[in-house]
């Protein structure tokens, strides 16, 4: 059988047809390759968009991790602040003109600057909140340093921008936020080693402020955390109960179908519509407080409910029916089978779905704007009904501000937000991997 055998060839007509097909092949393969190239180009384009997005945000935001400070020598007049027993009088401390003290000390070092306008220009180098910061520092310390001390105080945001190279010196003076004169002073301070860039801890420990150098994300982060706490508290039990109902108890029929249609549709309703619901129902009808994380959390809960329900149902379904049947076979009721046997096995999946839903809620902005969490709030919220803002809303507020320094802080706030989101998503993935079972 393995001997070479003369094999029959196709007849001439067939052969001619094959040759004709062969002639067209080159073009057809080229078309196929072209399609593949388009696919690669599309993916490369999409990924470069992602890369551009991330690099612009990082390159705009990384400098906000530092803040410019200026060294000043001054003497704090203890007698004006203390009671007779040497303790700091809080009323005196509050009424004392700290800004004036700092400005005076600073001007004293530029004795040649005498004109009113020039002195004001000199004052603009300092942060408007420098006095406030110093007061808080002294109050926290509880004692007043004696004699002349050297202090590092924050500069204004314009100086900060100049030091970070975000203010173009070559621009015409009229287009610049710092005059030639001011830049001259700053350069001389730099030459004296009296200006430095340090870690911007204010950004992580403060709430919003009119002055970029005093503004931070803590208030917004706490606001977000509170809202998400309410979201989980409401959405998780509701979603699990709904999912168990639909998977185990719902009788097939119109009501069940209607519930399913509703859930699927709610998943695709624009988020701003949930904001309108919150505004009209929670604020308008029930008279709940504006700007409160409680209401924000409730709106976000309604919004994420479909996501968590869908994820929970999927993980309940992933538990094989044999387990349910085994439980039922041992005499457990349907409810016992569901609660004692199915839910524990579905828990990792439910948790993963919840984390993904919460991550989605954390990035949501529009509904929170609708219920007034967009206000300018300088205090870190303490209770669920305090006015508060949220991290993404803070980004929105800052990116709307005129100051260049807020732009930078906005970018850093985005990095903080993305860090939270990435952490949540990675933990969801890890969780899924750890508990992934093949039945």
């Amino acid at each position: 059988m393995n001997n070479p055998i003369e094999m029959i060839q196709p007849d001439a007509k067939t052969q001619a047809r094959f040759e004709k097909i062969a002639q067209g092949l080159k073009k057809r393969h080229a078309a196929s390759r072209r399609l593949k190239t388009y696919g690669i180009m599309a993916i490369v384009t999409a990924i470069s968009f992602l890369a551009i997005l991330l690099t612009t945000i990082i390159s705009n935001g990384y400098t906000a991790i530092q803040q410019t400070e200026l060294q000043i020598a001054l003497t704090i007049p203890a007698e004006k602040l203390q009671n007779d027993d040497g303790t700091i009088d809080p009323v005196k401390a509050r009424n004392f003109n700290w800004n004036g003290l700092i400005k005076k000390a600073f001007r004293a070092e530029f004795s040649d600057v005498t004109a009113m306008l020039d002195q004001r220009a000199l004052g603009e180098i300092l942060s408007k909140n420098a006095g406030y910061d110093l007061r808080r520092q002294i109050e926290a310390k509880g004692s007043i340093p004696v004699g002349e001390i050297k202090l590092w105080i924050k500069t204004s945001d314009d100086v900060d921008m100049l030091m970070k190279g975000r203010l173009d010196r070559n621009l015409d003076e009229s287009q610049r936020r710092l005059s030639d004169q001011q830049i001259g002073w700053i350069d001389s301070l730099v030459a004296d080693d009296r200006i430095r860039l340090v870690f911007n801890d204010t950004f992580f420990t403060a709430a919003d402020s009119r002055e970029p150098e005093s503004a931070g994300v803590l208030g917004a982060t706490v606001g977000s955390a509170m809202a998400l706490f309410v979201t989980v508290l409401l959405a998780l039990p509701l979603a699990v109960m709904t999912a168990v109902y639909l998977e185990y108890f719902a009788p097939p029929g119109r009501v069940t179908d209607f519930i399913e249609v509703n859930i699927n549709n709610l998943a695709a309703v624009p988020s701003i519509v949930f904001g309108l619901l919150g505004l009209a129902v929670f604020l308008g009808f029930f008279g709940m407080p504006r700007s409160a994380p409680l209401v924000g959390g409730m709106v976000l809960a309604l919004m994420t409910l479909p996501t968590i329900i869908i994820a929970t149902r999927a993980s309940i379904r992933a538990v094989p029916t044999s387990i349910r049947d085994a439980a039922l076979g041992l005499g457990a009721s349907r409810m016992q089978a569901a609660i004692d046997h199915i839910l524990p096995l579905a828990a990792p999946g439910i948790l993963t779905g919840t984390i993904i839903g919460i991550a989605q809620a954390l990035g949501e902005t529009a509904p929170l704007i609708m219920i007034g969490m967009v206000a300018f709030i300088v205090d870190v919220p303490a209770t669920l009904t305090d006015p508060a803002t949220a991290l993404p809303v803070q980004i929105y507020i800052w990116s709307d501000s005129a100051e260049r320094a807020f732009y930078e802080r906005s970018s850093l706030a985005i990095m903080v937000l993305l860090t939270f989101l990435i952490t949540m998503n990675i933990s969801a993935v890890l969780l899924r991997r750890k508990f992934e079972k093949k039945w």
Partner: protein
Amino acid sequence: MDTVVDMAKAIKIQAKDVNVFYGEKQALNNVSIDIEDRSVTAFIGPSGCGKSTFLRCFNRMNDVIPSCRVKGSIMMGDVDVNSPQTDPVLLRARIGMVFQKPNPFPKTIFENVAYGPRIHGLAQSKTELDDMVEDSLKKAGLWGEVADRLADQATGLSGGQQQRLCIARAIAVGPDVLLMDEPCSALDPIATSVIEELISELQQRFTILIVTHSMQQAARVSQKTAYFHLGTLVEYGDTKDVFTLPKNEQTEAYISGKIG
């Protein structure tokens, strides 16, 4: 048909030492076979024996499966099937294939049959294309049933009609070999017998290789039968010999129903 025994037919395809691997697992072991021109050769054997895998070697359909590797030579005339120089697209134009489940495209009946001629650029004009479609449908014995509804969706046909449409679709390209991978396994007995008759007719124009689960079918339609077991070709010969006087014990066990 009585004279077939005397005159050995010319060889159309010759396979030598074909080995197929799925990843680490070997699915076919040194299979060598000569396929006669214009005859029906049936591949039988228990499921998982490698008969379908072997069939897919002839038009390199195994290329579609990423982990699959094929070794050995398959010659069809002067075409070396497994050579990297051989374009699988051209090869598949020369070797038509019909699958286990009817798989008409979600297009009209006409478009299904016209698909092959269109992509290969075989028809110069609309009338030529119409002729090709009509001719193929006639050869597949479907023309009478669909002539007046060529513009209907092909998915609306019955299972047997869909399978004949798939045969027409394969014929329309003008191959000289047809591979059939259990073409009747999804059909009812009546549709099956229609297809079997069709195969016997097509045999006069095409070299047909058919994989089948049903030994009766193999006995009915084929001239040659190859029995596969666990990836090896156990026995190959004239169908009536294989079924009446199997040389191998395994073949005998299989056709007498002891294994399967």
